[in-house]
């Protein structure tokens, strides 16, 4: 599948001074595939997304690795080149819709501008496209809502506007960074249903960045679990969630309350996430890991078996007690 992958990231390293936020990340996303990129705060999952779309702010810099999009190396693309890709072929949706929307401009102004940024169409046509996009994401009476300002929308509706904006040019690739985390459960379910429908219809590839395993389990085809700047495990969602190989993945799954018997102590991962400015040489999870031994202090290679990859010298057995 690597040969036909739309996006290939190889050994990506994005550092913020001494902080190795992304420290050798490799993955690929096929056409129409949904990849769930899972990790806790500080694991580097958002920085990975920002690196791909070329929006890492100084002092952050991509110090190594390659990002290949549709056969083209975009790692060191210039500003103009990235601008022509962003919004047209790759789009990003953020957790806070107000990171995308300008609070003092009407929705129509912003959507029309986004259409005309990449296509030479009349204002009327751009407006029609904007209206259709709003209708597509389930915003009622899109003609009137085009006239509204962002603050006149609820949080869920604002996120829909942003999704409509991302879909304007029917991009091949969308990076979604926790877009439903701040929303209520019923609204989250609506947005997820909408996203699921849209990416399937348009055959869009999607990276869904989240800390929520439950969302990923229903949405994604494959999952990549990040810890301290590295992907520690990758594989098809159902395989990874039912038979995790890396002890960190298993720990994450076991910490979810619904995976524990009601009222009993939750199975917790001991200790705290490491400081990414001072990472140990070997496996970063070793200090918290019950399976670790002296060998874990040295660099851990990538183990591959079929669709599954992991970085652990002592992976969990296939069948867990």
């Amino acid at each position, binding site marked *: 599948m690597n040969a036909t992958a739309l996006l290939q990231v190889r050994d990506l390293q994005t550092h913020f001074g001494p902080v190795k936020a992304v420290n050798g990340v490799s993955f690929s996303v096929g056409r129409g595939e949904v990849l769930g990129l899972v990790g*806790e705060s500080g694991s580097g999952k958002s920085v990975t997304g920002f690196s791909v779309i070329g929006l890492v702010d100084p002092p952050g810099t991509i110090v190594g690795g390659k990002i290949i999009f549709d056969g083209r190396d975009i790692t060191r693309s210039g500003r103009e080149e990235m601008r022509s890709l962003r919004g047209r072929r790759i789009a990003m949706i953020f957790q806070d819709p107000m990171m995308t929307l300008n609070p003092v401009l009407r929705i129509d102004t912003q959507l029309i501008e986004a259409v005309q940024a990449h296509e030479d169409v009349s204002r009327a046509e751009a407006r029609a496209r904007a209206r259709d996009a709003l209708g597509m994401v389930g915003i009622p009476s899109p003609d009137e809502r085009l006239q509204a300002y962002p603050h006149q929308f609820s949080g869920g509706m604002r996120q829909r506007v942003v999704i409509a904006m991302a879909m304007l040019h029917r991009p091949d690739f969308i990076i979604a960074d926790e877009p439903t985390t701040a929303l*209520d*459960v019923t609204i*989250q379910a609506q947005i997820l249903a909408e996203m699921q429908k849209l990416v399937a219809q348009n055959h869009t590839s999607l990276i869904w960045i989240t800390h929520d395993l439950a969302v990923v389990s*229903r949405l994604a085809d494959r999952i990549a679990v990040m810890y301290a700047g590295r992907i520690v495990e990758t594989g098809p969602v159902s395989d990874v969630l039912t038979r995790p190989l890396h002890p960190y993945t298993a720990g994450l*799954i076991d910490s979810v*309350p*619904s995976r524990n018997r009601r009222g009993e102590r939750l199975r917790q991962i001991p200790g705290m996430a490491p400081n990414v400015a001072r990472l140990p040489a070997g496996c970063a999870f070793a200090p918290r890991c019950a399976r670790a031994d002296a060998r874990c202090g040295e660099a851990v290679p990538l183990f591959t078996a079929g669709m599954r990859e992991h970085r652990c010298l002592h992976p969990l057995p296939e069948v867990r007690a």
Partner: protein
Amino acid sequence: MIGATSLVPTAEGSSVDSAEAVPLIELKHISHSFGTPSDIAARLAIALRLAKPAPRLRAIDDVSLSVRKGEVVGLVGESGCGKSTLGRVVAGILPPTSGSVLWRGRDIKTLSPSERREAKLRVQMIFQNPYASINPRRRAVDIVGEAPRVHRLINGDFDAFVDEQFRRAGLDPALKRRFPHQFSGGQRQRIGIARALAVQPEFLVCDEAVAALDVSVQAQILNLFMDLRERLNLTYLFISHDLGVVEHISDRVAIMYLGRIVEEAPAEEIFARANHPYTQALLAEVPRIETTKRSFAAIKGELPSPLAPPSGCHFHPRCPHALPRCRTEAPRLEVVAAGHRSACHLNGVCR
């Protein structure tokens, strides 16, 4: 007063035994609305029909709820349903617009000032945001130690007392001279817990206390809450939008929608046999780890504005089973099974 050496809960005390039948906290017909009180000029303008009365937001609408000693009650709802306001009323931070709060069977308003102060100390609150709820300019030791010092709860050595509070919340006392920014999010939440427990409360109101934490940290804090409950015989009102968390730690669950409790039942009962259509919709949409990919099916519509809630049953515009009666008449909470109350007109129809 209880000193640093006697951190044991007073559960065995005789005063508690006699009060066992009486709920620790009882809310009776509590309503709370937000809005600016009109001054004389505004009232005159309204009387002369030159102005409209300022809109008032009914955050809580006639809510009754009781919590027995040692119980964990989960309060669930989406944003804007009034669950945090209700938590603040229980914690005594916010006086309700109407209705009464009973502490051990006695109305707070009828207590003497010293009794009221005592009752307030017994109820402490833990907040959602561990970054905003502790003062960034004070050292951890002062954040935790200030309230017990002011209330003269420390008999022995101040430092020994604070160390004990730190250990109880799972923090290393060696870190107590640090400032909040030198702690991680999970550790900061532990400081908030140590601060609340330092005045020896019996009742903790946890307002989304684990919502801002990562899954693995959340598990650690939930375990801490459960350990503390056992060791200190604490009672909790656990406010959360996360049904998975609530199911795990609650004995009883109350579901709120736009200012009203729509259903209340023992936790096992509500997760097995949800009665109210809103509860059923919420339960259907709780993201759980699934092993097969499946599509999301959402209930329609958004939360209506609490400034202009729908008539009758607040849920009727989104309800798949709404009857004509639901538009006009608000259903009352009625018993549908032992310990299980639900506010839905359908229950009357089916019977």
